[in-house]
């Protein structure tokens, strides 16, 4: 059975990336990530397979992100999450943040769980309490909206070179 320590070691990066993009601010995402694993540590860890445990952790993260947004603590005017790339990409990252804010919450969560943390359709379905088919269609829709909003900037980034990676 996985302990809270093991879950922290395995999922902290994914949870942080998801929260960074979800709340739009690295400091807040850091605090929320710590809060996620505090809750994990205080709760009895379910006896389940690793995918179900990952979904459970992300469900907690999603609930905290929703609470954070609902409490009006969201500060979109502040700095973006700490991207590791150059200024041109930072502009694109800011555009991504704005585009994500315009998405319906469920589409944003499905997209971010997939692309920042690498959750499978089944894991996202469990975390968001929807069906895997709904995950597929929401993901498709989110990608379409983001592609449309980011437009040429995304193509320009792609022109610099892409590689097939699986998000972790």
């Amino acid at each position, binding site marked *: 059975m996985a302990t809270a320590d093991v879950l922290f070691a395995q999922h902290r990066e994914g949870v942080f990336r998801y929260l960074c993009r979800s709340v739009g601010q690295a400091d807040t995402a850091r605090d929320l990530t710590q809060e996620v694993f505090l809750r994990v540590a205080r709760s009895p860890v379910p006896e389940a397979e690793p995918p179900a445990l990952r979904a459970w952790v992300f469900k907690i993260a999603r609930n905290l992100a929703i609470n954070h947004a609902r409490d009006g603590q969201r500060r979109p005017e502040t700095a973006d*999450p700490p991207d590791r790339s150059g200024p041109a990409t930072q502009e694109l990252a800011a555009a991504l943040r704005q585009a994500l804010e315009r998405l319906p919450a469920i589409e944003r969560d499905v997209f971010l769980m997939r692309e920042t943390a690498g959750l499978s359709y089944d894991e996202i379905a469990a975390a968001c309490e929807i069906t895997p088919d709904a995950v597929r269609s929401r993901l498709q829709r989110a990608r379409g909206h983001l592609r449309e909003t980011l437009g040429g900037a995304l193509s320009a980034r792609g022109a610099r070179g892409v590689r097939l990676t699986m998000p972790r």
Partner: protein
Amino acid sequence: MTNDNETGTDIIGAFIDGERVDPAALKAALARPEGRDYLVDLLALRELAGDVAPFVSSAPPVRPLIPLPRWAAAAALIACIGGGFLAGTRATRVTPAPAGTTQVTPPDARVRAPEPTRVVRLEPGVDWTETSGGK
């Protein structure tokens, strides 16, 4: 396997997500220029979305506890007991009066009473009578 009704973008999305897809449908989707553009855009989007600096905890690092050697623990214990004994001894010792204070003496030893200038003599039975009882 995905069904044949899915659009090409569905197939491409599922493919880059590691899902099992119909190879014929994937080939068909990628045969179109817009399908290939879509694939490149999705990969760029994935790279962009996941490009976040690593998590660094804001909590102060927890310093691991170093076990104290036995001899050091014994030395600390002896020092504590010795220090406590000395402190107790000093606290209960009678301290002499500090220098610079004067010794207080009874007043009659310091000043002699003056000699009487008039002596009044009282005689029993004349100046007072003695009775028994409390009246």
